[in-house]
């Protein structure tokens, strides 16, 4: 039997222990680094709002970091994305992400204010933190979820996620412990519309102190090297990728890809035949025997679309392909088809993108300056 029908969810009977009955509310961990919130946190506030409304409870943002004006502004921003309140923990030890400090902060808040659901983004930080928090709280945690639902019969959360490397999906339920924890992949839940005013809603800020001395925190952060300065291409973590295949004709033509990549801040990938022909190094190979990538945007130039390539990049949000052959296999799983010669289209795309981005940026600066004049 190789076809697995979606059977109804069968849940073993287990009753929620007494001590967890008072756990109420949906929390979302707001991940931020260098004053910049990871968009997955806003996406989770959108989903959290939906779950909280269904459960009839409050939605809270959980914001921890070093004291300063930035963190207060971020707290207000959680309101704009739908939070009823925000738990804020400010402490110098929380300046950079460190597992021991952040785990202590989160577990203190959870044991004090007892949420029933705690959501984190499935980023390297979110997965590192969720694992240690769940073990400290001895509660259930489901990783990399792509879907969250509520079963109102017993208020339990059904989290569905890929397993066996994405080959199968499964629905996981946490019956016996609280909070029900889950990490969710970026760009799976829709980004909610930001509404700074949310007329008729009040916003509460709940501050809580963390008593943890720097001396007792063992791990110190010495440095941070941003990807742009990394020596090796970071294809697996790139959000924008332009990839070349045999259709590029010659190794020199890969320069066209590198210059377009510069305009888009993208990484350059390659299909197996291109790597095999020595036109790009093995680090850039996308596909079954290369890297699996999940970028926001993937442009494939001169790539035929063999299945071994497809399985490595099919997870991209938006796929555009350039190929002279109108019925190349790649067009079966691309959003946009540009039928033509990549060597002419790539430079044209570079100018078109540069022009459009400059125009949008100009319009944006004009409108913000008008806004400054008006208030």
């Amino acid at each position: 039997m190789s076809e697995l029908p979606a059977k109804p969810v069968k849940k073993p009977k287990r009753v929620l222990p007494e001590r967890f009955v008072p756990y109420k509310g949906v929390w979302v961990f707001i991940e931020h680094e260098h004053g910049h919130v990871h968009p997955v946190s806003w996406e989770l506030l959108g989903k959290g709002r939906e779950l909280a409304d269904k459960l009839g409870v409050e939605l809270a943002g959980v914001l921890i970091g070093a004291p300063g004006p930035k963190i207060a502004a971020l707290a207000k921003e959680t309101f704009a994305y739908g939070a009823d309140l925000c738990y804020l923990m400010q402490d110098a030890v929380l300046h950079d992400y460190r597992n021991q400090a952040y785990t202590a902060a989160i577990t203190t808040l959870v044991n004090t204010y007892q949420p029933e659901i705690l959501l984190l983004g499935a980023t390297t930080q979110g997965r590192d933190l969720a694992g240690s928090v769940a073990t400290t709280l001895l509660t259930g945690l489901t990783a990399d979820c792509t879907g969250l639902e509520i079963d109102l019969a017993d208020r339990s959360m059904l989290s569905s996620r890929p397993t066996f490397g994405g080959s199968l999906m499964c629905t996981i339920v946490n019956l016996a412990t609280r909070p029900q924890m889950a990490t969710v992949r970026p760009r799976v839940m829709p980004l909610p519309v930001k509404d700074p005013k949310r007329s008729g809603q009040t916003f509460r800020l709940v501050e809580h102190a963390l008593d943890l001395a720097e001396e007792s925190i063992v791990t110190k952060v010495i440095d941070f090297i941003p990807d742009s300065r990394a020596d090796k291409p970071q294809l697996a973590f790139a959000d924008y990728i332009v990839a070349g295949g045999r259709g590029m004709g010659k190794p020199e033509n890969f320069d066209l890809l590198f210059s377009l990549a510069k305009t888009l801040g993208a990484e350059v990938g390659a299909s197996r035949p291109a790597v095999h022909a020595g036109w790009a190094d093995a680090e850039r190979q996308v596909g079954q025997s290369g890297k699996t990538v999940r970028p926001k945007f993937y442009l494939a130039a001169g790539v035929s679309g063999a299945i071994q390539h497809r399985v490595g990049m099919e997870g991209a949000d938006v796929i555009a392909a350039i190929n002279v052959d109108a019925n190349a296999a790649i067009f079966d799983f691309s959003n946009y088809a540009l039928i033509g010669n990549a060597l002419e289209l790539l430079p044209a795309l570079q100018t078109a993108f540069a022009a459009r981005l400059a125009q949008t940026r100009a319009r944006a600066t004009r409108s913000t300056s008008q806004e400054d004049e008006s208030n």
Partner: protein
Amino acid sequence: MNAAVDFALPTVNVEEKLFQNRYRVDAGRPHITLRNADSCLACDAKPCTVCCPAGCWRADEGGKIDLVVDGCLECGTCRLVCDHDNVDWNYPRGGFGILFKFG
């Protein structure tokens, strides 16, 4: 009496078939290599491009042979059908190459 209808030969994308197989590719260490690429240019029949069951042997328009052994089934055919004895043929390192699930 009409002769049996001559059956049109199907066009087959062998990559689709190889996708079902299990491989552990020994990246950077191809187990089959050409002894010297020029003698392929002189060969016009190129039986390797026909007989290889995994389609590893491809000739581009210029007649130059492009050999990719990631999908090789290790049958040994290319070595035998090459009239110029131009194929340096070995088994992959232990545990690498094709790994038949059924065989």
